[in-house]
């Protein structure tokens, strides 16, 4: 799980072009949207693509994303339970 969280942080920084942010800057329970990393609606859609491409998870309902993407902790849990690759 710890390894997955690190990997997810790297992938998020990479696909969302968060140049000024490093893996060490993202805490597992920090909110990803709003106050935290300040991600927006396009970022949310991009994370849905990331889940599909890297983990074979298809998120049909964008509303589902709200809880899943609330922090690295929730995201990693979701990926672990649902990944198909």
């Amino acid at each position, binding site marked *: 799980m710890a390894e997955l969280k690190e990997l997810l942080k790297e992938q998020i920084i990479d696909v969302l072009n968060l140049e000024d942010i490093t893996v060490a800057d993202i805490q597992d329970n920090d909110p990803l949207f709003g106050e935290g990393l300040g991600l*927006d*609606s*396009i970022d949310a*859609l991009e994370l*849905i*693509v990331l889940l599909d491409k890297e983990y074979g998870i298809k998120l049909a309902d*964008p509303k589902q994303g709200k809880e899943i993407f609330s922090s690295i902790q929730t995201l990693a849990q979701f990926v672990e339970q649902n990944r198909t690759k």
Partner: protein
Amino acid sequence: MRSAYIQESVIISPLGFDTAQNFKQLQAGNSALRKTTLSASLGETVVAQLDEEALNNHFQALGVESFGSRMEKMSLAALMPIIQQRPITANSLLILSTTKGNIQALADQDIQGSFIPAMAKRIADYFAFQQEPLVISNACVSGLMALSVAKRFIQMEQVSDVYIIAVDELTPFVLSGFQSFQALSPENCRPYDQDRQGVNLGEAAVACYVSSVKEADSIRIAGDANINDANHISGPSRTGEGLYLSIQKALQEANLKAEDIDYVLAHGTATRYNDDMEAIAFHRAGLANCPTTSLKGYYGHTLGAAGLLEAVITAECLRRQFVLASLGYAHPGTTEPMHIQQETLAKEIKTALKTASGFAGTNTALILTTD
């Protein structure tokens, strides 16, 4: 200052190959939207697609079947009947409006083929325009902005008259993008309805003639504005600021008030946020009770063609004294109340507002009148 008038138009769409045919289909309540599978990757989508056989026959009848790309042929087919009636002069301007031009060329690694100024030049040369074509690529407001710009160039007396072509086609390029935005509706779109699920895409080529001479069927462009939201590059503004300001400025120029507007032909893409944004802007502008129609339920969203397509239909509504039902609407479902036109019927209308909004926070409002 001179006035600018919308004269003849030609619409090449799945609902017909001239404006009269198109209007007849709208009056009959017919939609061009169908379930189609354009590619395995895209899967099934609901789109408004031109019938290839009918289109090719039409190209042959006009003698343009061997000219350039499909989109260029569509452009010629739209403009040719107008130029036959209205010969161009040394001072005529051609405006081309498109969001993506021949973007399909990229799928074949043909980068040069995708360049839009070259496409505009080929079309301009075909008709022997002497002035360089002016090409507007301003997302989903392009077609309406083209009318706004045409009006301004006529007012400045820079040109004698303006021929506009607004065109975009249905491509995997654009469909895949809207799909990745999760913005596509799996059913026929339902602008402003509580159960709306998103947009459908369509394709069309529209041509229109704009001049400074008032004729029997002329529709005057009384005011116009193109104001940006300065809020978000893809998400509609939560306050509808850019659209609201565009409407205010257009009204001001036309020397009119909200209560003078008899009919609104809005953008109405049927995405949740766009329609809410419009509802807020119209409410702020005092237009919440004005009959409002979106044409997306008939044509889908034809992107760079949509603004001109819908504006020339607005002009037809004013000429024929008709309002059109907003197809797909049944139950109110926007954050501010709106008066959505639910029936197609004859009605006395003198002044109409046409609006469009698009990616990058761009908005255009145009006021059209019969006087």
